[in-house]
């Protein structure tokens, strides 16, 4: 089942969209200034100690390439791997490495370097180089391996002692962990030199600071809180939003202990007015989440719909006195999380439940935000389950129904109550041209160019 890699520029064009914009051809040069809320202290794509986030993926994608990239329709396309094939059973895969690719330090990308990099990212796989390619052997059938390899954590990096070198469109010029990252465009990048000469990324900036910096013209690109996207647009800023991808959910810290506990969990799930959360609190910056995965990804999520049902809710808590209060923790630095937590508290109160918002780590319930790890639904669901400390989903087959069954099983554990799928939003300075994001909201800064005053 050999799949020949499509010529790379096809992929580039397909994925990244058109590289011209608004009648003007892209200009080379200039420095793109970016501000981000995340403050990663490591750029290593395989560093599992750093929280998985879109921001991290955005950074990683500039410096490190993956073997495969997924397009907006979840189709894998060649990147560092020019082609791949799997043996029957999808447990053993062979990836052929694109020739002529070099790391930032000028050394050629070898199959050995790729194998070493992937081994650092996943120790469960058996990975070895074989001629111009590498072979990956998995314990279990992994039909989605190319999709999995498209994840940022499988970015190919050369680790020389503490030094990290990638093969991406930008090399690291300056790195102040958690504070600032300066990247320089590579002229010899295999997928074409990026248009901007460099990117300066300020890390750890609050959304408010970012907005001020943008309004003052200090930065060209910022993140915008999901609930502020609409307002920012109304106020005349240039805002781009992704599909609803990031899951916001309530996760129970402990397993259910009794039928009463289960009933209480169901009552809570029924009490939440997701529509108000999405439409009012998030200002349309999120969709009500029925399932763990967004409906645009699965097509069936509405089947899990748990619209606020007062009658069912009331029938659930005939004996409100027996309801034990729960503590609910949320990220206090996240204003959206605070709003949602407060609303849920109100909703729960209507159902006779007492939720006490807290910043304690040992709360009964956690309000979490988990970005979609991949456009591949199976990979995304598996990662969500890992992030939520749920049992790993099992897929009996390749069909949509199998995915549905796996997700339903996760939901039926009553360990998690999906609330919303949030959209990522970015605001841009007017001079930023050819702005494109992937469906998950990931930035494609390689294609961005600066339109005014920066030849």
């Amino acid at each position, binding site marked *: 089942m050999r799949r020949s890699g499509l010529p790379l*520029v*096809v992929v580039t064009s397909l994925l990244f969209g058109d590289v011209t914009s608004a009648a*003007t051809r892209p200009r080379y040069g200039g420095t793109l200034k970016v501000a981000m809320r995340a403050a990663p202290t490591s750029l290593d794509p395989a560093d599992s100690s750093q929280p998985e986030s879109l921001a991290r993926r955005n950074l990683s994608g500039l410096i490190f390439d993956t073997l495969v990239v997924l397009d907006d329709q979840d189709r894998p396309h060649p990147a560092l791997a020019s082609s791949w094939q799997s043996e029957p059973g999808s447990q053993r895969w062979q990836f052929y490495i694109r020739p002529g690719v070099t790391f930032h330090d000028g050394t050629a990308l070898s199959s050995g370097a790729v194998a070493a990099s992937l081994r650092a990212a996943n120790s469960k796989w058996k990975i070895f180089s074989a001629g111009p390619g590498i072979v990956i052997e998995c314990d279990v059938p992994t039909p989605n391996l190319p999709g999995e390899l498209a994840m940022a954590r499988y970015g190919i990096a050369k680790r020389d002692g503490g030094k990290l070198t990638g093969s991406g469109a930008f090399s690291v010029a300056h790195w102040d962990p958690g504070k600032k990252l300066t990247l320089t465009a590579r002229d010899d990048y295999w997928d074409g030199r990026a248009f901007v000469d460099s990117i300066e990324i300020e890390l750890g900036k609050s959304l408010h600071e970012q907005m001020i910096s943008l309004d003052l013209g200090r930065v060209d690109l910022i993140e915008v809180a999901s609930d502020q996207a609409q307002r920012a647009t109304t106020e005349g800023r240039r805002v781009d939003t992704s599909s609803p991808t990031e899951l916001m959910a309530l996760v129970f810290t402990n397993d259910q202990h009794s039928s009463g506990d289960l009933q209480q969990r169901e009552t809570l799930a029924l009490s939440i007015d997701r529509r108000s959360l999405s439409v009012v609190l998030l200002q349309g910056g999120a969709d009500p989440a029925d399932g763990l995965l967004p409906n645009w990804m699965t097509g069936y999520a509405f089947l899990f719909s748990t619209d606020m049902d007062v009658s069912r809710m009331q029938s659930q808590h005939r004996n409100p006195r027996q309801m034990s209060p729960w503590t609910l923790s949320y990220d206090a630095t996240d204003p959206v999380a605070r709003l949602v937590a407060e609303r849920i508290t109100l909703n729960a109160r209507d159902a006779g439940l007492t939720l006490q918002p807290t910043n304690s780590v040992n709360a009964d319930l956690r309000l979490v935000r988990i970005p979609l790890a991949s456009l591949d639904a199976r990979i995304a669901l598996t990662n969500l389950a890992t992030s939520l400390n749920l049992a790993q989903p099992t897929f009996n087959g390749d069909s949509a129904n199998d995915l549905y069954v796996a997700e339903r099983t996760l939901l039926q554990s009553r360990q998690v109550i999906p609330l919303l799928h949030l959209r990522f939003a970015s605001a841009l300075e007017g001079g930023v041209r050819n702005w494109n994001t992937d469906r998950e909201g990931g930035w494609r800064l390689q294609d961005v160019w600066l339109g005014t005053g920066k030849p």
Partner: protein
Amino acid sequence: MRKAMRNSVYNRLIRDVPILPRRFQCFTSSLLILLLLAAEALADNWTSPAAQLAAKIAAVTGPGTVALDFKNHSSLRQTDVDEIRRGVLIQLATLGLRFVNAEQAAATVQVFLSEDLRDYVWIAEVHQGANESSVVMVSFARPDAQLAAHEAAAMEVRKTLLWSQADRIMDAAILDGTPSHLLVLDSNGVIVYRMQDGRWQSEQFLAVAHSRPWPRDLRGRLILRKDHLFDAFLPGIFCRSTSSAPVTMTCYESDDPWPIGTDQYGLSAFFAPLRNFFTGVLVPGVGKQTTAPAFYSAAALPREKYTLWMLASVNGPLHMLDGITDRTAGKLAWGSDITGVHSGCGSGWQILATESGNNRGDTVRAFEFPDRDPIAVSQPADFGGPITALWAESSGNGAIAVSRNSETGRYEAFRLTISCGH
């Protein structure tokens, strides 16, 4: 199954089949028919999944009475939904189910027509008595977005859709003849299409080999030649086709200047091989002027005694070279791509220039230069997305414009001509 479905998608590019070269003829008017046929073919595709879904529903309910309801959660049009509904009902009926209202039914079936990233997902939620509902579903690949029917604008700038594909198109050229042939230059090479049965059928693919990475804003140009079929210019690469069957193409690394004018008003310029602009070095030059600021595109505007060359410079201003002086025009709202077209209308030659449209797409508009400043002589022609290429045809009678459709994401190559209008 999903992959099988995907492969059966209509009008999918098949590169692997080599075809013999033919002479090409002009063909534009049958495109509309083509689209209508495609729509008809789509309708046929619902039968199989409808049957599958019906079978799965019947497997849950068994023969008996059911109440059926349909909800569309997908991008399907209502007509398609009705079609599907009919198909499912027919299939269920053949499987022994009778349809009654909800109160009388042994089972209620809620059918959702949904979709995910790639596939249609049709789901049936079956409620039987007090039992928990059962869910069955079928999924199958969605066809690529249908080609939008673009009518030629009844404007002075007329655009005619030549070809649409997912890969980026650098340039296109129509070879008149019987049958007509269409050359499409993309990053992989030149694809030759032949008009057959009212459709462009892929005939041959001539690959472009290159060792250096392509620039990100890849540009290329096809020049029809008289002594051989065509030359293809790509950054750092020059390709030359043979003149007779079987057509082959030889490519080699070259920094030779690209022709930027027409057969009649020829001028060449060196292209920066890692960038997306011409360096400004002109061959043989405009009069005595052999250098100009770096520019994206050029347009020739023949005057009585000289040819005025307009260069859309990288820095923004429009430079006008008359052989002696280099003037810059006042502030214009033009884009990076301009070209000169001989229409015979007005002064005979017009400049086609890209502009930012009010909506998502760019526009192309015709201008004349009676004096220093341009005067718009046409309404802007709208495109469904940004224009990625605008080249004059070798004849100079028209231009090829490529835009990326913002809705479908596909690249569309148009032939632009200027009609004298009313």
